[in-house]
């Protein structure tokens, strides 16, 4: 496990130490160590079933790990009180995979929801903040629409706008470019870079899209079968020699076990002969 040596301990906004988790006896996370530093974009790569969504759930405090600690802004969220967890979460904005927008509320109201519920701002102020957030994500003219009326890309943008509503220090994006066409996906990448430049937020992106990952990332981490097999600056990461990383980066399929393949072909031929 390689923790990038350029990182000073005090810089870490999120620091994950030895986190393990298993479901029904199957290890989903195995002693994961990871730091996310202030102001950087860290991309967490991993195939399907590698445990990246599970790790995200733990970082958000939606699940408790079996072992290890997760410290966000100096508070260990695995053993803090619900109210402490609440204060930590107020500094985190999350855009979920499918957007998780509330279908009964318009886009404006979706973005306004955290402001209305968690702050004592006046309605006019809230309107102004919502408008600014929607401009920042390029949705200023779609505020009165409802989530089902939006395209996939617009929904992701709206989710980012809602995640940004309370001006979080940390922005967490779950599969921002999944299911989007290359143009929309590139637009979203630009949005992520823009948010980092103009608001200085720390961004953790979970994805399996290589191109967008290397475009936006400062550092890249890779999960494989619940283990973190590499964390590195993206330039070094691209040349990494670990076989699993090479397989992932070069888009090689898993080798089919030879015996199984032969058996399959033989049984198929037998079926044809009959």
């Amino acid at each position: 496990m390689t923790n990038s040596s350029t990182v000073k301990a005090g810089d870490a906004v999120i620091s994950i130490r030895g986190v393990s988790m298993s479901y029904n006896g199957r290890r989903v996370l195995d002693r994961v160590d990871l730091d996310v530093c202030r102001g950087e974009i860290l991309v967490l790569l991993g195939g399907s079933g590698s445990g990246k969504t599970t790790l995200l759930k733990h970082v958000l405090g939606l699940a408790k790990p079996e072992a290890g600690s997760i410290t966000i802004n100096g508070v260990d969220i695995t053993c803090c009180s619900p109210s402490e967890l609440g204060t930590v979460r107020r500094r985190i904005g999350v855009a979920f995979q499918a957007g998780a927008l509330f279908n009964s509320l318009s886009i404006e109201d979706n973005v306004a929801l955290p402001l209305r519920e968690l702050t004592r701002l006046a309605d006019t102020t809230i309107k102004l903040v919502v408008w600014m957030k929607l401009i920042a994500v390029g949705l200023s003219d779609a505020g009165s629409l409802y989530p089902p009326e939006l395209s996939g890309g617009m929904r992701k943008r709206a989710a980012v706008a809602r995640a940004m509503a309370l001006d979080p220090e940390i922005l967490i994006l779950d599969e921002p470019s999944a299911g989007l066409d290359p143009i929309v996906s590139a637009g979203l990448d630009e949005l992520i870079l823009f948010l980092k430049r103009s608001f200085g937020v720390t961004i953790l992106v979970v994805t399996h899209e290589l191109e967008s990952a290397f475009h936006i990332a400062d550092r890249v981490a890779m999960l494989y079968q619940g283990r973190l097999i590499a964390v590195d600056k993206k330039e070094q990461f691209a040349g990494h020699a670990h076989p699993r990383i090479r397989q992932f980066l070069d888009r090689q399929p898993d080798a089919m076990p030879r015996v199984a393949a032969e058996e399959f072909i033989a049984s198929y031929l037998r079926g044809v002969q009959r």
Partner: protein
Amino acid sequence: MTVLEQVGRAAIVHVEDAGALTMQFWSVLRKLPRVLPMVGARRRWRSAVEQMLAIGASALPMSGAMSLCTGFILSLQSASELRRYGALEFVVDLVVIGFTRELGPLITALSVSGRSASAISAEIGTMVVTEEIDALRVMGLDPVEFTLAPKYLAALITLPCLTILSTLCGIFAGYLFLAFSMDMSLRIYLQAVAQAILLRDVAFMLVKSLVFATIIVHVGCLEGLRVRGGPEAVGHSTTAAVVKSTFLIILADLVATAVFYLMGWSSAG
């Protein structure tokens, strides 16, 4: 040993289930004041009103029509028997007592269970699948207060109202029958109704409808929250919600009626 282990494990799972049900229930009850208009959080009561329209107001035509039909059936069936003893006027007592004690709350609850238990579990199940519940938690908003409490409040307010209305429908059906079959005037019918109806029965009816409302909304919410995996799990949960809530309503009705008779409350009627 293995049999013992199996039994023990099953018992633990069921006890945990029951515990989760109860804890959920208390946490919702504690949050109910937050949904009320004056004392609660701003704006929250609006979603309660929306739920009242969805659970209560739009169920009125169906439960009303069901009660009308049942009232008619009840008087039709009983009249053919009672006529042989020349006791046709007892149809009024039968309809009134039958509806206030039993049929009014039951028919209303069954129609609402079919409509709303499924709708509630589908809505909440979809919110689980699309990570909306997670999003609420992460935003620091309590899903119990935000999505469950308005539904509980709406069901607890609207189901007694619906029950009263559909009981009236059933009693009105009795009048229709008697007006056609023996030209009974409305005034005489109402006098007979006033004699047959008991405040205690009406109170019992309202208590029953509150219990049924709790069952419907509680089962719907829990089945919804239990959804794991993809959209097809939502379909399973809606079916389970309707089946379980219908069964529990009948069971609760049986228990309530047994208590009612064991306590001797029926004697004066």
